[in-house]
Every structure is written in structure tokens, then in C-alpha cells.
């Protein structure tokens, strides 16, 4: 293996592509934590469900050339609505209880959804073919880089920007940020906080499922992908700062790059690096790189 510049460039681009996938998932996790104070373990399950749904939609529209795009639009919406139902009818009943109770409920969802997916789709692996426009690769410094990855590299920041715009420049975004600060005052001001929470949960779930839909052509869809991703997303959110939007973006890039470059230097230890970063951040700045320390007891 040679460590010349083109090779490293490709490796960094691959790391950035992974970072974008991680970002989509972690941003949903972060917004749900920021507003509702819930660490949603089931987030990885919604991601996995998004990937399976994409596979399902693609095989449903098998004769259409645009089947992948249809699936990317449809699958996350279906999963998000499903997430909304869970929030509305189950999770809502646990608000006001200890954090541990809510956390364990989402863990119960991980167990249940993982098995439900096994029951519906079995344990075989699926793959979704890339849309015709994005097949093949482009040459960068004499190395080949998949077109689909370039699409993801563009998609990631676009979603980040849209999300940021939604949070900072729209009425709903303003209410969501207000709910993160002080939900009681917001309630007193006449905003239906319960409904807001459902919207936030749907939004977060949609982001996870979108991540699942977009990752579908780049990986194999199989049981266990929920567990793999949730821990990574979790690490990202902790590094960037729980509830901090740009922190999540930064955390994703750090984790993506460290992982892909770490593999070159210490193939076995690259996963350890990520946990070490997480521990260092937690010890030095428990609220994350771009997060704010929690001063008020809620």
C-alpha cells in the first residue's frame, strides 16, 4: 500500500462520504435529544427500517427508471409517520418519568424492531442498485471515485443547510429551539408543546430514515446495521455537543475522517481512536465541542 497524495485524497473523500451518512443520522438523534432530552437508541432502528423500506419501494416500482428516487422520497416519509405514531401513543406516556425509563423504552424498541424486520424480510442481505445517472466512477488524480459518493458529498451539506434554515428561519424551527430552552414557558405562551414534540420526533425519524434510504445503494442491507450505526451516531453527537447542530456536523466529519485515515495507520485500532476522542471530549468538555454547558436544571 502506498501512501501517496492521490490515495490519501481518495481516502479522505471516502471518509467525508461516510461523514455525510453519519451526519444525517446523528442530526436526527441530536435534535431529538436537544428538544426532548431523550437519548433515542431506536434511532438506528429507524435508519435500518428506512433502508429496508427503500429496498421494498425499489422492488415495488421495479419497472420505473426513477424507482430509486421514488423510494428515497417515499420510504423516509413512511418510516417518519411510523415514528410519529410511536411517539404519540407510547413514548408520550413516559414523559415526566426518569430519563432511564425513556432510554430503556427506546432500547426495547431496538429489540422489537430488529426482530420485526427479521420476521418481515428474513436474514438475507439486500442491495439496491444505484440510479442510472449515478452509476460508474469519476477519475480524481488517477484514482477512481464512485459518482454516487460525490452525490452524497453534495447531498449532505444541502440537507444540513436546509435543516439549519428550517431551525433558524422558520416559525416551527423557532418554536423547536424555544422548546429546547424552556418547554414550560413555551407551553404557557400557548404553544402546543405535545404536538411540537411529535413533530420533532417525526423530523428526527425522517432524517434517520433518509440516511437509511441514501445508504442503501452504497452498502448491503442486513440485520445488525442498526446497532453498528447507533453507537457511531451517538459518539458523533457526544463529540459535537448534544443538541448542537453544527457540533453534530463537525463531529460527523471528525469521526468520518479519523476512521478512514485511522484504518491506514493502525487498521485494528481505528475504532479505538473514536472512543478515545469521545472520552477526551467528555472529560475536558462534557457538553461537546460546540455545545453549551447545561446550567439550568430542567
Amino acid at each position, binding site marked *: 500500500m502506498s501512501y501517496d497524495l492521490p490515495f490519501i485524497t481518495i481516502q479522505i473523500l471516502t471518509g467525508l462520504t461516510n461523514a455525510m451518512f453519519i451526519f444525517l443520522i446523528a442530526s436526527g438523534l441530536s435534535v431529538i435529544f436537544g428538544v426532548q432530552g431523550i437519548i433515542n437508541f431506536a434511532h438506528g432502528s429507524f435508519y435500518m427500517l428506512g433502508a429496508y423500506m427503500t429496498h421494498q419501494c425499489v422492488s415495488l416500482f421495479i419497472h420505473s427508471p426513477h424507482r430509486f428516487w421514488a423510494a428515497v422520497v417515499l420510504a423516509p416519509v413512511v418510516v417518519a409517520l411510523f415514528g410519529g405514531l410511536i411517539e404519540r401513543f407510547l413514548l408520550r406516556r413516559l414523559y415526566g418519568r426518569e430519563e432511564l425509563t425513556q432510554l430503556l*423504552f427506546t432500547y426495547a424498541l431496538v429489540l422489537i424492531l430488529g426482530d420485526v424486520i427479521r420476521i418481515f424480510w428474513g436474514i438475507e442481505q439486500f442491495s439496491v442498485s444505484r440510479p442510472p445517472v449515478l452509476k460508474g466512477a469519476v477519475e480524481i488524480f488517477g484514482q477512481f471515485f464512485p459518482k454516487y459518493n460525490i452525490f452524497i458529498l453534495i447531498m449532505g451539506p444541502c440537507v444540513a443547510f436546509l435543516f439549519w434554515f428550517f431551525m433558524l428561519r422558520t416559525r416551527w424551527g423557532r418554536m423547536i429551539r424555544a422548546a429546547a430552552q424552556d418547554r414550560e414557558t413555551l407551553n404557557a405562551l400557548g404553544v402546543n408543546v405535545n404536538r411540537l414534540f411529535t413533530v420533532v420526533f417525526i423530523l428526527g425519524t425522517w432524517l434517520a430514515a433518509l440516511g437509511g434510504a441514501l445508504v442503501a445503494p452504497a452498502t448491503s442491507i442486513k440485520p445488525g446495521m442498526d446497532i453498528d450505526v447507533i453507537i457511531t451516531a451517538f459518539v458523533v453527537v457526544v463529540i459535537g455537543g448534544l443538541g448542537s447542530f453544527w457540533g453534530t456536523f463537525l463531529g460527523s466529519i471528525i469521526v468520518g475522517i479519523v476512521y478512514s485515515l485511522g484504518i491506514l495507520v493502525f487498521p485494528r*485500532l481505528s475504532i479505538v481512536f473514536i472512543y478515545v476522542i469521545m472520552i477526551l471530549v467528555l472529560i475536558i468538555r462534557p457538553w461537546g465541542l460546540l455545545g453549551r454547558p447545561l446550567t439550568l436544571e430542567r
Partner: protein
Amino acid sequence: MTKIEKWTVLAILIIIALIPVYGSRFFVFLFTDILIFGLFALSLNLLLGYTGLVSFGHAAYFGIGAYTCALLIKKAGIDFMLSLLAAGLFGAVGALLIGFFCVRLTKIYFAMLTLAFSQIIWAIAFKWNALTGGDNGIMGIDFPPYLDSKVKFFYFVLVVFTTSLIILRTIVNSPFGRVLVAIRENPARTEFIGINVKRFQLLAFIISGFFASVSGGLFCMFNHSVFPSFCNWSMSAEVLIMALLGGIYNFFGPVIGAGLLLYLRMESTSFTAYWPLILGTILCLLLFFFPGGIAGFVQDRFQKWRAAK
């Protein structure tokens, strides 16, 4: 401890001790498992129920204990009992190093830091092939000559379990244990009356780590092998569920939880491959309908019955 409680516990221990006489080999196997995990869950509950610290990485110490025991036996040829003791001490040292950082954080951040550290332990077990055997683990750990049957090993586990139970019970009833409860109820006020909260939390962390490692060492011998999954986060979650299922505000709750969960798992594997689905459903029912766990539920009913009388 009330008199009724004391006699009930003694009676249950005697019933368990007589299992090899009247029970089948299946029950000897099941109860060895239950006692080991019961000890693991008890050790967790010293943090969870008594000190109010949610450790999400308790499998780390279970794993440290199991691997220490396995490595000392396989690579250094040291006797099992000595290895078990060493496993406990190693776990305590590990808990000291990790706990030193963790007790500086509170609540959710504490939970996450414990999780991160346990993931490091898991990554070492999973990736350091030369020492830990990586994904394949370490296999072929045989019973020592003086514990050459499953029944003998069962009695050994029972003795270790009972001794640990008595020690832990003494600890939680001592002034030290009372301070832990005070910390759980209100850390700020406990600090105000001149108690070094962090130091007490760290001590609880170390004691908890010691017993978790001992249970890990026992489990290594019970399984005749160790695997990275012993220190994975799903193991941490499982022991947490055991403690909650039994009830964390009762000393014996975690043991009841371990017993019920392991029994259900053994029964369910004979007719379904979907144990996680069952476990998830149990967990949901528990969270929605029995927030105090089984022991909490029974205690509640008992008190109501008494009040009515």
C-alpha cells in the same frame, strides 16, 4: 432486615442448595447461570439503586473479570480460585481508573462516559487478537481438578454468591451505605453536610467493579470460554434490564430479575428464535405497568394489604 425477610432468604438459599438432590441437570445449569448473573446485577445495583448512578457500561468489569480469569488460567497456568480473586482485584483497579473520570460527571454524561470506556474495553477484547483471541475469544478453559463436575461448580458458585450477598448487604446497611443513599436522594445536600460525594461515589464504583469482575470470572469458568460479547454494550443493557425487572429499590430485586429473565430466555429458545422481541416486549410492559419492578410491585401490594388489615 426484618425477621420474615431473613428466614425467607435463608429458606430460598436452602431450596437452591438442594437443587442437585431433587432437580434435573437442567436446573443445576440454570441456577448456576442465575446465581452468576444475580451477583452481576447486585453489583450493578450498588451503583444504580443505592448511589443513583446509571452505569451504562457495567459489562466492562464483567468482561475484565472474565478475560483476566481466562488469561491467567490459560496463559499463566494459575489456579482457578487465585485467578478469580485476581479477576476481582483487576476489576476493582479498572473501576478505580475508569471511575476516577466518570464520577466527575453527572447524570446522562456519567452514563455516556461509562459507555465509552466499556466500548474501549470491548474494542480491545475484539481487536487485540494476540492476547484475547479477537472475535474467536478464548476457549477450552477446563474445570480445576477439585471442581470437576457441574454440581461441584454449582456449589462453588453458590458459596461465592452467598458470601458476596452477605458482604454487599453489610455494606449497604453500614453508615457507608446510608451515605450512598443520601447521595442518591440529594447529592448537593450531602455535599453540604461535609461529605466528599465524589470520593464516596468512586468507592461505590470500585466495590461494584470488584463484584462484577468476580461474576465475570465465574461466568468464564461456567462457559469454559470468553468472548468479546461479554463486554459489549448489549450485555450492559441486559444486566440493567435484569436489575430493573427485579426492582432496584429492593436489595434482592436484581437477583429476582436475573432469575426471571434467564429462565424466560431458556424457555423461549426452545420454541422461538425471536428472544429479543420477547425481551423488548417484557421491557415495555415493565416500563409502562410495573415501574418499580417485581420486588417493588410485591412490596407495594404487601404494604397495601397490611394497611388494609
